[in-house]
């Protein structure tokens, strides 16, 4: 049955804890009647406190393990408002930022990235310089060709 597995065990656990507590309470109540109101009242309160202390974790565990707490927090808690109350500066001051930076640098092999990017930049710059050189040579050749028509006619 669908109800059998999660809900049945949950109910059984809570029911068991409640039954245990009620039995103990009944016994303490009998002792209260036998021992007198003042002494018995203190004893029952003490006993009840111990029972509750022992029972709450069991009940809470049974309840919380069956709930999606993350979903509940997301739906019902204004996280932005919570974050505003956090002293981020104090948190950051406790972090070893230089250590983190060194860890990141070691991980990403920064020298290799710098080498490859500067090599690419240099290659493009040199290529551009050569292209400009060729274009300038052509421009000079055209000018000289106009100034010396004989040279232009032989070259063409």
């Amino acid at each position, binding site marked *: 049955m669908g109800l059998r597995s999660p809900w049945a065990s949950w109910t059984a656990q809570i029911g068991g804890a409640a039954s245990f507590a009620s039995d103990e309470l009944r016994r303490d109540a009998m002792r209260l009647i036998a021992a007198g109101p003042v002494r018995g009242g203190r004893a029952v309160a003490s006993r009840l406190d111990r029972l509750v202390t022992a029972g709450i974790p069991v009940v809470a565990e049974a309840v919380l393990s069956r709930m999606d707490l993350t979903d509940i927090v997301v739906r019902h808690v204004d996280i932005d408002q919570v974050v505003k109350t956090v002293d981020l500066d104090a948190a950051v001051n406790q972090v070893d930022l230089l250590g983190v930076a060194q860890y990141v640098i070691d991980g990403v092999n920064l020298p290799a990235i710098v080498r490859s990017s500067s090599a690419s930049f240099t290659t493009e710059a040199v290529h551009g310089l050569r292209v400009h050189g060729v274009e*300038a040579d052509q*421009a000079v*050749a055209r000018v000289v060709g106009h100034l010396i028509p004989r040279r232009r006619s032989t070259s063409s």
Partner: protein
Amino acid sequence: MVTHPVGGMVPARVSPDALRGTPAGIASRAAANLIDFTVTGSLLVGVYVGVATLRFLRNPRSFTFPAPSLALIILVGSVLAGLYFAICWAFSGRTYGALVLGLRVVGREGRHPRPTVALLRAVACVVFPVGLVWCGVDRLGRSVQDLLLRTSVVYDWPDD
């Protein structure tokens, strides 16, 4: 031997393969020479620092920086430039400036010049640098040194 005129065989869209072996013009060659001039200046500074260091090590207490005359600077600079050109042309046909601009000095066979030719060309370039200007006028882009030693400077972009 290069037979294409400067600018005559150069396609409108610059392509390294189409350019290879065509004569370089005066603009590229002047730019390469400018870079080589800087290299020679660096060598000269290096020599100066070396001499100053030796002087300091030999007699640190009375050390003063050397103050060479202008004539000595020109002489040493010319020797350095000549050696630099000769060695580069003899080994690869390229100085550093030529490497950057994608140029190469070639002999009659189309290969880099022999050591003797490289040395003579270096001396000619140092003694008579104005001879470069003739490559702007010559149909085949030859400088005075090229005409004397039957060399050429061609485009030859190295593979990056």
